[in-house]
């Protein structure tokens, strides 16, 4: 085993060697280095062909038309383009947008920017499960609503929204529906022929492709319009200018091709490992799984160890690369806004670990992680005055804390 063990696949994934090989064939003079927009020579044609193959591969995974794929630099740019682009285009029809409190910052901050420009945004509260229901969306839609933006799978808790049911509502109400699918591609089936989604953000680096490349699905039938956010040479049918990065695009295409071919088998294997991990941890006292376990991607486990602070826990787990919802891991001193929004108290939010598994995770690594987590929790509880108080039967909610 190699240490530290990587268990943070929701943050990013290593590039699959098959993907890296394809990418390396698009760089040097001898290889496919041309500008896909060059129409006057072989170099451009070859590059264009590679880009179009990749476009088909990406479209195949989510079952859409390749002409509905617009390359971007990643999911953050796709979110910005979708939300600002649609809001600006449809602003004459209304200025109301619906999203949720547990969206990725790329969505929330795009909405904040639109608020500064005079739009009004409704932030839906998820249930304790972390799920946004179609009924909530239906109840929030007003005559001036132009856009609903919700994530398919949450990045912290891995919980899955029923975007097909939500899409039926938005379609019926003639509201544009944007879905951030950064955490769902390759993890669950996406069929845009059946799902009434209008705009979908995609990324390569969570699916064993390279960082720095993503795409926005823009539906053609019924046609969805967006205003470009990046102006220039009119690439990507004017929706996103900028020379196409052939090697990045080819990498994303190959990564999505592999995902389509292997995802079912792979996710079954990962689910078995996740179950093994949870089985190994659930006998620890005062352990809580955050968010709905049944409606969750196989790779994610978000779990809180009460009375143990997340950063010190990660310090004890230096052999494991995981992440925490504790305040101390971020620049702000607030614990995870996602965990707070699904109703966790601050203590449990501070005590959380996100463990995310992937293609290269091995059973021996999971067993090692289980042992290490047991040791670390025991050690830190021995050090914890809160654990003492809990064991003495003190109700921590009744204690008057000297907050600082």
């Amino acid at each position, binding site marked *: 085993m190699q240490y530290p063990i990587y268990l943070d696949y929701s943050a990013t994934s290593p590039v699959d060697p098959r993907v890296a090989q394809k990418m390396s064939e698009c760089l040097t003079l001898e290889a496919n280095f041309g500008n896909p927009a060059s129409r006057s020579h072989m170099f451009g044609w070859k590059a264009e062909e590679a880009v179009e193959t990749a476009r088909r591969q990406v479209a195949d995974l989510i079952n859409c038309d390749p002409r509905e794929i617009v390359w971007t630099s990643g999911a953050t740019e796709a979110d910005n383009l979708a939300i600002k682009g649609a809001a600006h285009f449809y602003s004459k029809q209304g200025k109301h947008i619906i999203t949720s409190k547990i969206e990725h910052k790329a969505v929330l901050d795009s909405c904040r920017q639109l608020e500064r420009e005079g739009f009004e945004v409704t932030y839906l509260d998820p249930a304790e499960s972390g799920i946004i229901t179609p009924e909530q969306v239906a109840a929030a839609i007003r005559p001036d609503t132009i856009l609903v933006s919700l994530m398919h799978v949450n990045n912290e808790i891995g919980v899955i929204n029923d975007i097909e049911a939500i899409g039926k509502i938005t379609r019926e109400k003639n509201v544009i529906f944007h879905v951030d699918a950064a955490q769902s591609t390759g993890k669950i089936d996406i069929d845009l022929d059946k799902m009434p989604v209008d705009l979908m953000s995609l990324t390569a680096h969570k699916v064993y492709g390279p960082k720095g490349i993503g795409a926005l699905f823009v539906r053609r039938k019924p046609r969805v319009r967006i205003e470009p956010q990046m102006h220039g040479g009119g690439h990507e049918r004017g929706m996103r200018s900028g020379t196409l990065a052939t090697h990045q695009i080819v990498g994303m295409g190959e990564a999505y091709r592999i995902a389509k071919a292997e995802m079912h088998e792979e996710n079954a294997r990962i689910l078995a490992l996740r179950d093994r991990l949870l089985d190994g941890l659930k006998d620890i006292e005062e352990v809580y799984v955050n968010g709905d376990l049944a409606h969750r991607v196989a790779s994610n486990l978000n779990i809180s160890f009460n*009375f*143990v*602070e*997340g*950063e*010190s826990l990660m*310090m004890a787990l230096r052999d494991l690369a995981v992440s925490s919802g*504790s*305040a*101390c891991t971020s*620049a702000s*001193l607030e*614990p995870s806004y996602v965990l707070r929004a699904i109703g966790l*108290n*601050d*203590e449990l939010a*501070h005590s959380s670990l996100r463990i995310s598994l992937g293609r290269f995770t091995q059973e021996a690594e999971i067993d090692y992680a289980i042992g290490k987590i047991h040791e670390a929790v025991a050690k830190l509880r*021995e*050090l*914890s*005055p*809160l*654990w*003492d108080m809990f064991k003495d039967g003190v109700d*921590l909610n009744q204690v008057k*804390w*000297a*907050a*600082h």
Partner: protein
Amino acid sequence: MAYSDKVLDHYENPRNVGKMDDKDINVGTGMVGAPACGDVMRLQIRVNDQGVIEDAKFKTYGCGSAIASSSLLTEWVKGRSLEEATLIRNKDIAEELGLPPVKIHCSVLAEDAIKAAIEDVRNKRKAQQ
């Protein structure tokens, strides 16, 4: 975040972890911080009749820097008089441990803890007189 060797040392081998009887007249208890903020420190000192701190114990819920700050503090206060112990400043703790700016609040909490513990034992003794 990279931790200094001293923080790691205190975190790996915390000194004076434990609990004293907080009803004991010679024991001062300082409990500071809040679970909501991600750190709670409980510092306890045993003071003899000459006003010298004979023993100190701590338990801390918090990040590595908070644990190290309280562990270091227990080492520093042992053998000091209450007056001397009041002179400990968070700056000294932060310097000794090489805490980065975002972790300065951990050393502030440790200073608050020793002050609270001293006040507690003084109040107890006053109440008895």
